[in-house]
């Protein structure tokens, strides 16, 4: 089996641009959440909304990071995911530009990708007729737009994935990326998540909110302030990373996922599966101690960065990688766990999806306890 390492982190969050801003926010060195009031521009002919408080990305110029070529028609999500990917590559010492290279792939987790453009396209038709539809907007209406746009911008012609399994989406993307490397389908994967807050996404979330909350309009608040994030990790086959002299920040040791109503404990099953795949399932009294709680649980990430929905897992994973690298976490291995427990009154979710990763320091060993399929739980 191929060893998978993390060699770079790129992040755009309400904390700022870059992985260091992310880390500083998490360790408390920067103001929490950085909430702003945002007035959402309504699509043509749609009702305006009052300002809403969100943990928004700071203003930034995508062209400064991506160049001007090919970005004019991209959605805000595609640009943000692209900037995160470029930063992650720089952190990893990679060029972020390849010549149609099939050894480099992309994986993105998102639940909002393309929604704003979809709503805008449809609203334009209502307001202006079929001639009002902008053909340039069409390709950005899909959930797959950010991952596809980054593959085009960078020339990454390997596996290309988008995953939308609720809040677990970006951990699923990271897990799928690691499996692509493990199978030999790719050597390098740029993987993570992106979630931005436009008119359609915010109004949808508002509608799903259960009741009074911290929002500025009484009676229609969120449980937590909504957040924006675009985070990318560079995953590489360890041997290839070593061959180019890269410095691994962490190792990705295992992944697992599960679904079900709370009574079936999907989070616990996902964590167990990931630990099993990492060889850390405790089967004997002498087996090494496995991490049992996530280093950065979802509520802590929500508190620091807002509810980043489908990008939450990528934020958690990036923080964990940086924590392992800087030795600010207590152990050599750490659990990343995202659960989707959005059971809102009006749109009750049918169940929860949970995904877990196990990460280790770049020098941590891999204890041997047997292959993952002996774990007895779903992965």
């Amino acid at each position: 089996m191929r060893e998978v390492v993390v060699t770079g982190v790129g992040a755009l969050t309400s904390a700022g641009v870059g992985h260091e801003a992310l880390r500083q926010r998490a360790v408390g060195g920067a103001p929490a959440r950085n909430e702003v009031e945002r007035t959402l521009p309504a699509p043509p002919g749609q009702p305006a909304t009052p300002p809403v408080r969100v943990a928004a990305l700071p203003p930034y110029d995508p062209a400064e990071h991506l160049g001007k070529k090919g970005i004019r028609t991209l959605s805000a999500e595609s640009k943000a995911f692209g900037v995160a990917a470029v930063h992650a590559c720089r952190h990893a010492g990679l060029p972020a530009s390849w010549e149609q290279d099939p050894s480099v792939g992309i994986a993105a987790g998102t639940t909002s990708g393309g929604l704003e453009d979809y709503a805008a396209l449809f609203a334009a038709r209502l307001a202006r007729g079929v001639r009002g539809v902008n053909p340039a907007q069409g390709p950005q209406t899909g959930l797959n737009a950010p991952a596809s746009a980054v593959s085009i911008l960078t020339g990454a012609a390997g596996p290309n994935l988008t995953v939308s399994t609720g809040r677990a989406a970006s951990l699923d993307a990271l897990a799928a990326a690691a499996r692509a490397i493990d199978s030999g389908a790719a050597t390098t994967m740029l993987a993570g998540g992106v979630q931005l807050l436009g008119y359609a996404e915010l109004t949808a979330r508002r509608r799903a909110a259960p009741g009074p909350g911290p929002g500025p309009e009484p009676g229609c608040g969120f449980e937590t302030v909504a957040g924006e994030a675009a985070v990318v990790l560079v995953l590489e086959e360890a041997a290839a990373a070593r061959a180019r002299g890269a410095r691994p920040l962490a190792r990705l040791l295992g992944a697992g996922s599960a679904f079900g109503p709370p009574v079936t404990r999907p989070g616990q099953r996902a964590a167990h599966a990931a630990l099993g795949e990492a060889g850390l399932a405790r089967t004997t009294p002498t087996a090494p101690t496995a991490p049992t709680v996530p280093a950065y649980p979802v509520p802590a990430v929500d508190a620091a960065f807002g509810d980043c929905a489908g990008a939450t897992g990528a934020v958690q994973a990036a923080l964990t990688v940086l924590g392992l690298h800087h030795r600010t976490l207590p152990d050599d291995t750490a659990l990343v766990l995202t659960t989707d427990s959005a059971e809102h009154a009006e749109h009750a979710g049918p169940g929860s999806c949970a995904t877990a990763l196990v990460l280790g320091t770049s020098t941590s060993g891999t204890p041997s306890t047997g292959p993952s399929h002996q774990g007895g739980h779903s992965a």
Partner: protein
Amino acid sequence: MRQGLARRVVVTGVGVVSALGVGAEEFWAAARRGHVGTGDVTLFDTGDCLTHRGGEIRDWTPPWPDEAYGHGPLTRSESFVLAATRMALADGGLADGHGRLTGPYDDTRVGASFGIVVGNRPGIEAPLRAAHLSEQDAGTPPGPASHTAPSQPWHRRTPPAHNPFRISALPAAAFGLYGPNLLLPTACAAGNGAVAHAADAVAAGRADAMLAGGTDELSEAMFLMFTSFRALSPDVVRPFDTHRAGLLLGEGSAVLLLEAEDSARARGAPVLAVVAGHGNYSDAHHMTAPHPEGQGATRSMRAALRTAGLAPDDIDCVSAHGTGTPANDAVEARALAEVFGDGHRHAPLPVTALKSLLGHAQGAAGALAAAACVLALRDGVVPPTANVEAPDPDCLTDDFALVRDRARRLPLRAVMNNAFGFGGNNCCVVFTRPDTEPARRGPGTGERA
């Protein structure tokens, strides 16, 4: 990463909701006859569009009431995938009287993996239309409006939560599939991609069985988008024809029940086909145009062959993506020639394109074609490509034989299923007959193309 053993993965059940019929056998009988299921669109007004036709499922009545699931009104794509999943489980003998999982597997070892393009996103169209009309009634001029005295709280007049995850979560919750769950919106390659990922999960031992496929519905927004591209045919879909004029959007769902072969045989399940290999490589070229040399398609087909442990000559039929647009068919033909056209075959390689019958069912397209591949292997029959009167000599070369007019009986052992999408998303899957020699390398063990 320790991914466990590579087990051979087989198909033991098929569920289909399509413009050709509901249920695997109704769908398959119509496909074998070459019945064209496209026609006038009635779901929304196409009066000001350039074309008015699509692959609509007329008068959709769910075989089991949507209300029974207890999750409120469902979009068509949600309703389709619930029905197709229930049919696949029942077809494979793993459903109880209520459609829920029964049999030898622990429910935490059975998962779901589905592909979409838009999924339930069209569910926001009706609220957007209602809000637009409401604004008009209130005398608000189109365009950015001020926030003035709404008759209801603003958030009640705006689009509801759409939550794409419902597509994979609803069937999993309804039928007790509590293992791994994936929703892959990888454009029009998604149906194939979902089958590929599910096969990997079973092969690696992360699940014992998976329900895998795709679903999508005919939506006004997508119809407008393709209208704006001038990519829609005015009448029918003519894949690889000299006079092909575009695609027709369609809808539906297809779901396969995948299991490890040893477990399936142990419970006495009928084994229909083997998921032998797959490949997923992107074009990295353009958001809507395919790579002019079909680079991603070529790499994906070659990776699918390699992971199946097969050579190009081992493939007996190609289920083409075959959208019927001038650019896509030309590029796919070029990629097919690159992979299969070495001139050493003893006979031209049969090619068929299901979209001539169904239209392009988006995220369900690859899954519907996968269902057809499985049934083709079972029966030794290739369904015909309809509407082709003058095959384009600049498309498929003499190394290929487009199956048209009527179905062909062939001793099929291995079939390649192609699915390509916007953004350069490609996924190809090889299915083999169960008595074909097992692949030398299981799914998910492919080296780079």
